[in-house]
Each structure stands twice: as structure tokens, then as C-alpha cells.
């Protein structure tokens, strides 16, 4: 008998794009597109059950086994370093983690650098490698404001096109790492539902290869 696979999708554009890929791979679930207050969407015949969660929570659902697999951005994986399998790079939602600052910013290495970010762990490990002393200011949104108001010297944040930065007289100063969406799996689910998860992963990979060709 086919085992039911629980799939955590990140709310928002990325999640919708990811769902479209699952759909194309033959794991559709029509009820997900209906307007409703339902939280969980199931297609018993295909053996899948989807639910939307906050993007940064996907790895928590997957690590603790509430979801067998999920779609998470590499930024979230790097920030929380969960104990999970990272099965596939879906090559969507591409952007980069970068250091940005005011255009005229000059980095004085004799001072502690003040860094505003939503990703304190990524920022810490990046500056640790440079043996740089920093002061982390953890913010939850509107990171770009920080250097403008003098709250921080630089920011560490996701940069897609850089448009928001340039409009606010900021610019990217250094790239930290490339980001894209990943198919992640709970380690224990991967053992007990191995066949089903491998099948999903293989079908998604096939779509990726077809796109490239």
C-alpha cells in the first residue's frame, strides 16, 4: 500500500511555484486552489497531503517529522541548520545572501561592525571566517532602514534584483552565498517511506532536467 506523504509548502509565491512543480510531476491536489479556510489539502489517491506554513517554519515541521518532506529556501536551511536531508536543488526562487550598505560606506576595520539582519547565524559565520568582530542587530523586517537611520553599518539580507537597495541609496557590497529553493526530507521518514519519497524526488528531478534541455 502507498504511504501518505505530508508535504510542507512555504506560504507565498515560492510555495505556489513549488506546488505547480508537484502538480506537473503528477501529485496534483485540486482542492488546494479553491478559496477556503482549510489548512490541509489531501489527495488520497496520489498519496499526498499538503499544508502551507510560514517559510521559516518549513524546516521545523520537517525536522520534527510533522511533514515528511517540504520546500525550504537555502537561506532558512543555513540559518537554522536543521538535521534533515537536502535532496534536490529546485533551482527556483533564486537570489543571493549579500552584505549591503550605503553607497558611500567605508568599512573601518578598527571598529566593531554593526550588522542588522534577519539571519544572525549566517551573518555570524560569515564574519567569523574573516575574524571580524561584529555586533548583531536582529530585526524582523524592513532591514534596509537600519543603515539609513544609522542603526547599523551594514545589513546582511537576501538580494534578488537589488532594486529596493538602489532606490534607497544602498548597494550590495559582497556576496555571501547563492540561495534557491530545496526539496528537504525528514531523515526518519526518508527511511520508512523511502520508496514514496524517492519517487517524488525522481519525478521532480526529471522536470528540472526537462526544463534545462
Amino acid at each position, binding site marked *: 500500500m502507498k504511504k501518505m506523504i505530508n508535504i510542507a509548502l512555504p506560504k507565498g509565491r515560492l510555495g505556489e511555484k513549488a506546488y505547480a512543480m508537484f502538480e506537473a510531476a503528477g501529485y496534483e491536489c485540486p482542492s488546494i486552489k479553491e478559496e477556503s479556510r482549510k489548512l490541509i489539502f489531501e489527495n488520497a489517491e496520489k498519496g499526498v497531503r499538503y499544508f502551507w506554513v510560514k517559510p521559516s517554519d518549513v524546516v521545523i515541521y520537517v525536522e520534527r517529522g510533522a511533514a515528511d518532506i517540504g520546500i525550504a529556501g537555502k537561506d532558512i536551511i543555513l540559518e537554522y541548520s536543521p538535521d*534533515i536531508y*537536502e*535532496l534536490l536543488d529546485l533551482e527556483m526562487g533564486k537570489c543571493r545572501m549579500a552584505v549591503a550598505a550605503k553607497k558611500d560606506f567605508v568599512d573601518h576595520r578598527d571598529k566593531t561592525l554593526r550588522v542588522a539582519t534577519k539571519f544572525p547565524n549566517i551573518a555570524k559565520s560569515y564574519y567569523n571566517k574573516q575574524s571580524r568582530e561584529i555586533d548583531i542587530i536582529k530585526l524582523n523586517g524592513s532591514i534596509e532602514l537600519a543603515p539609513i537611520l544609522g542603526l547599523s553599518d551594514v545589513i546582511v539580507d537576501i538580494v534578488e534584483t537589488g532594486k529596493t537597495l538602489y532606490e534607497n541609496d544602498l548597494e550590495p557590497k559582497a556576496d555571501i552565498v547563492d540561495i534557491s529553493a530545496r526539496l528537504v526530507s*525528514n531523515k526518519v521518514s526518508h*527511511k*520508512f517511506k*523511502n520508496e514514496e519519497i524517492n519517487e517524488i524526488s525522481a519525478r521532480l528531478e526529471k522536470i528540472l532536467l526537462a526544463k534545462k534541455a
Partner: protein
Amino acid sequence: MTLSDKLFKEEERAAYKLRELYRKYGYLQYKVSKFEEYDLYARNKSFLVSDKLLTFTDTNGKLMALKPDVTLSIIKNVVANEKSSYKVYYDEKVYRTTTSGDGFREIMQTGLESIGAIDSFSQSEVIMLAMRSLENISEDYILDISNMKLLEGLFESAGIDASLMSEILSLIGSKNISAIKSFCRREGVSVDAEDRICQFASCYMPIENALEEIKPLLVGEKMLSAYSELCELYEILKLYGSTEKLYVDFSIVNDMNYYDGIIFKGFINGIFDSVLSGGRYDRLMEKLGKKMGAIGFAVYLDRLERFGAENDAYEVDALLLYDDSAEAKDIISAVRKLGADGKTVRVLNTLDKSISYKMLAVIRKGGLEILEEND
């Protein structure tokens, strides 16, 4: 008097079953004190699951720590040599921080160690016992096995520098094929070797198939000898019985500074964390100045807390009420009647609504009257 099954929590039942199992194979119980000198752990921090210790100062001013681990204490005191063997099991409470990092927890841990002259038979015995341990908890289990020497040989044959071992190991640990590929390109690993590393990383199958699968991927003396170690193990385990729940998975990596050779991890369907972990730790022995073989494992019984039977819907089977007119002998005979077949009876003189009960009864005119029955 036989004890009701309901008396035991899942982890307690498992602890007794495991003790019985290990005794049967001649392992002796090893009792340790609750604390140990801090120094022992400070020197071997990375061997511990978490490096945070609960410390206190002893009356003579020495810094002590509540045990975060039992294996180190056993090794420290072991009296064995390369020609003898030392087989013990333990059933202790250890003190560790939680994964979320807030505060310490007391954890029930059972495990066994086989130290001294370790040959392929004694190694297989330990792995057989690991499988039986899991089987005692649930039939629906998997024991994953890997060989660190095989991976070491794989990396060496690919020309990967020793300083990069932990990086590539953690990529294999998360089965991150795309990152392994970019790692290999960055380090100038040949396409052929890259392909082999990827195959090892994604390998997950019963040992019988896995041995066939990786056979053509072996390069160099180190890999060949590690492979034949796995084959020997498989041959002996077959004699013990079924091996279909023994899987080869190279993603169950462990610290190379302590573990070399065979390592393994056990999983139970429904528990989203490994419940058993162990391996060959000759390197740790060497670090502690004891040149001999050692293999062992620990079972994390606290992880069984949420496993198994659902809690009963009712706290007691029957609530028995009485008033001043009731006589003691009537109450006692009513308790006997209601309490037949191991049912639980709580006797009260006023109704307490905070307790959930299946049946509510009252003593009236010396007789038993049932007022309410839920199902």
C-alpha cells in the same frame, strides 16, 4: 502477583526487556555513580552529544559534573587488554541539555559496551544485540549501518585532503548531492570519483543489495578491507536470523576523531529521531591511553515517551461514592467487585469532578448502585 501492563510506561518496559536481553548474552550490569570529575569530559568534549555540562564543586574543592554520558566512565575504569574481553551493559540516568538548548534534562539511557579483543564475531554480536534491542521496542524498526573506514578510503582515493573530511562528511550526512558535486568541482576531484561519492551518498538499501551495489565502486586497499569487514558481518548476522531490517546508509556519519570502522543508528517508525546509536570507537580508547578494540551502543529510552499506546481516556475505571450511612464492610466488598480484572477504583466521600472516570457508583442502603457509565 503479576504486574499489570498498564503500570509501565513504554520506556520503563523497554528498559526491563533490554536488561533481560543483555544478561542473556552474558553482559554484566555496570553501575556508575551519578557524577564524575569534570576533567574527564573536558578532555573529550567532542565525544559528547552536547558539550554543556551540569557542574558543581565537591566538598574538597574539585570540580565535578553530573554524568552526560556513561561510556567514558566505563572506559576509564575498564580492566581489559587486547587478549581479554570485557562485556557490560548499563541502565543509567544522564544529564544533558535539550536540543532547543534551554536547560538540562534527566535522560534514561541504556546501552552496552564490548571492550578488549574485538574480532568479527564479537562485533557481529553487538550489532545483533542492537537489532534485537530495537525489535523489543517495535517490530517496525530499521538499523542503518555504515563503515567510516570505507568513507575514509573513498575520500583518499578521490584525493580529498584530510582537512576537508568533515566538510564532505557533513554533505554526505545531508545527502546533498548538488553540494557534493560543487564541492568536487571546487576541489578538482575527477568526474569518476565524484560519481562514486554521489553513489555512496545516495545509497540506501538492505545490506544484501547494498553489498552488491557498492562492490564495483571499491578503489584501493583501505576500501577493500572495509568492504570485506561489512561482508563478514553480514555473513555472521545471517546465521543469527533475519537481516532484512539492516540497511546500509552512509549518511549516518559520526565524529571521525572517535569512531572508526563500523557505525550504526537505529530507528523506529513513528519516532522522528534515532533511538539507538553506536559504533566502533577504538580511536577514543587510544586517546584515553588504552590500546584495544571497543564497540558499543546506547539506546535513548526517553525518546519512547510519546510512542506506543495512547493514554487512557479515563484516569480511573470507577469512582465509588459513599456517605455516613455506609458501613466499611460494604465499601470494601464494593471495591472488590468493581476492582475485578485489574480495574482501578477510587473511593471518595464527595464527588470530585476534576477526575475523569468511566463509571460512577454509589453505596446506598448497603448495596451498590451504578449512577453513570461512560464508554
